[in-house]
């Protein structure tokens, strides 16, 4: 069972997972939140916005 499945299955009340890289250390949950910000930002500027009638 992958991490995401585990989170969905038992909620977020288990022991946290941490990712370390040099002096950097971040919990999986915080990393997902920050990743969500980046993904939303990229999608927001890349996805086409619905066209509407344009008039001068």
């Amino acid at each position, binding site marked *: 069972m992958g991490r995401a499945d585990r989170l969905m299955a038992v909620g977020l009340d288990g022991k946290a997972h941490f990712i370390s890289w040099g002096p950097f250390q971040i919990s999986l949950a915080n990393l997902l*939140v920050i990743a969500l910000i980046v993904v*939303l*930002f990229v999608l*927001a*500027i890349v*996805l086409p*916005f619905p066209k509407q009638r344009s008039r001068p």
Partner: protein
Amino acid sequence: MTTRADSPAERRSWTSRVRERAEVALPPDKLLPDRQPEYVASWIYVFGVATIAALIFIVASGVVLTLEGPQWYHVSAVGHFVNSVHLWSVELFFVFMVVHLWGKFWMAAWRGRRVMTWITGVVSFLASIGAAFTGYLVQTNFDSQWISSEAKDGLNSVGIGAWFNVVNVGQMLLWHVVLLPLVVGAIVVWHVLLVRRHGVVPPLDAREETSP
């Protein structure tokens, strides 16, 4: 726009002056326009209103928590659910606000006398961090014990802790449910009025194509 032919006496009254200034700054079609410039066509523009929507749920869930007091959510399933709504609306609030902030930075949205719009936005971001922080302090659980015990050292180191005592739960609760929401709310209203007053910033280099 309508020009009022008021009597000289009425024109001098403070009330009429305030009304006229408000009408000039924010006439109804500027306050609630049904059209936007053609360049307002990107999903990036929805993150400001998404942030406000999240703020509405923060305030609404916070008001419900206020009804029964700070320790209700420890013992009530309904209270715990409302606490969960409060937490997740805060998480989404910051997610949306940061996307909004990045978007406005890359659009250099402070151009065209919109500096105060940028500044009020940053101040509301910083005030929100303070509001969220005091929320963590008044959870009355292990988290608030630890966070207050750590944060007191940080704030004492520059003298702030002598007045803003993070381990004084009564003081922090009042900051969290009265003072900081008032500050955040007032600045957000000011920010939105500035956005409506000055309009959405035009694209960079738009001058060459369309200016006379």
